[in-house]
């Protein structure tokens, strides 16, 4: 090594120069809850069970989504629609319970493709947030079904 290399001071000055350049650079951080990273248009986020134009649930509990699911995250129990419930469920058979385990789910979107009734979708604007308990990651119908547009019926 030459003398100037052995003194290390030029190298140290060079290193200090690099760090000070980074000091004034634009920061890479995105302050998450306040601002969100721009997502792709085909982003697959939290699941939603859609309703049709009359507000009735589209899901008919055929179980194709559960079959298609590679992570086996979806379980459901089917039930028969009774008289007077036509405004609630579109088909004669409907899902009494419908659970997605968000810890298992890999957000691949295969359920979305498998669904013949276009009932389940992965939203592009919502994420499954972090929670404190494992139980809270099992999303039931109460959290999956799309809320009604009007606030009159619950």
């Amino acid at each position, binding site marked *: 090594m030459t003398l100037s290399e052995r003194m290390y001071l030029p190298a140290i000055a060079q290193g200090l120069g*690099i760090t000070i350049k980074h000091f004034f650079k634009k*920061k890479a951080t995105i302050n998450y809850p306040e601002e969100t990273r721009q997502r792709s248009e085909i982003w697959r986020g939290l699941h939603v069970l859609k309703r049709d134009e009359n507000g009735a649930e589209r899901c008919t509990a055929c179980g194709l989504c559960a079959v298609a699911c590679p992570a086996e995250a979806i379980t459901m129990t089917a039930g028969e629609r009774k008289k007077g419930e036509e405004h609630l469920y579109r088909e004669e058979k409907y899902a009494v319970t419908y659970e997605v385990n968000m810890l298992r789910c890999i957000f691949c979107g295969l359920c979305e493709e498998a669904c013949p009734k276009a009932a389940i979708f992965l939203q592009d604007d919502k994420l499954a947030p972090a929670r404190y308990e494992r139980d809270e990651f099992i999303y039931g119908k109460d959290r999956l079904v799309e809320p009604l547009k009007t606030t009159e019926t619950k």
Partner: protein
Amino acid sequence: MDSVLLIYKGIYILAIFGISLLIATYSTYFERKIAAFIQDRVGPNRAGPMGLLQPLADAGKLFFKEEFIPAKANKTLFILGPGIAMLVAAMSSAVIPFGDTLIIGETSFDLIAIDVNIGILYIFGVVSLGVYGLMIGGWASNNKFSLLGAIRAASQNISYELAMGLSLIAVLMLSGSLSLKVIAEQQTGFNWNIWYQPLGFLIFLICAFAETNRTPFDLPESEAELIGGYHTEYSSMKLGMYLFAEYINIFVVSAVMATLYFGAYNFPFMENLRNAFDDPVLGNNVVTIIGVGVMFAKIFAFIFFFMWVRWTLPRFRYDQLMKLGWNILIPLAILNILLTGGGILLYEYFTKG
């Protein structure tokens, strides 16, 4: 009149103590902020606006953590360690001149806590005691990693104190006085010692890094090898005191460097500014107040430099550290003394005929 001065000194000492504590507190914040900025992050920004309350949150956390004393530790010494570190760190800012003289009415107030004629030796002595806090704490923890950290701290501090003292002697040869006040007064305007002592300043700077256990010389507390070194076993506010003492030491060492080499409270064209006022008292006071600001600006610049270096350079290996101290810095410091002596002789030969 004496009682006025006495009360003034008391208030001033309290103020200096408070300021050094405040600066040490916010050094932790700025350390994290600067680290983040250098690494393209934003750093703490949740506690208060821009994260400004972060030090309070940290202190609160430290106070409420469990105070753990290892079973086979020497309890007295274990508690004594951080106490010594903190005491010694807080003592050393007493002789630093933070400003010139304020004149209020008939009385003139020196902006220095105690003007002893051995000021720089006082700082040197007090700083050299700081290593006891680390050594005693490390030894009393009854932990091999702590002990290794303590031993590293001891040998490192002793080694670099030599080079530091030798580089200091060159400054003292120029000033002819050990009093920091006199040294500061000699560097009026832009006549700073750094122009005469660049090599000495470099040596002093490197030794200052080693004395305060800062990266690239933070071997006593290297977290990768020693799990924190001497403070491995410490928790709660005792750990906080160790960390705090380190930041106060950085503040003091920055102040000493600013005083010795960068003209303390002196700034260019201060005499012109002083003469621009018709009233000499007013001129003096304005210059003094600006001087205090300048002094603190210099100190902050040095503190920033300390942090900047910390987030740039990797740590030394231990044999490299010792080689740098003994084989390079000490001979260089002696060479610097010889050069300074020769320079002074030449200057006197040519000026006095």
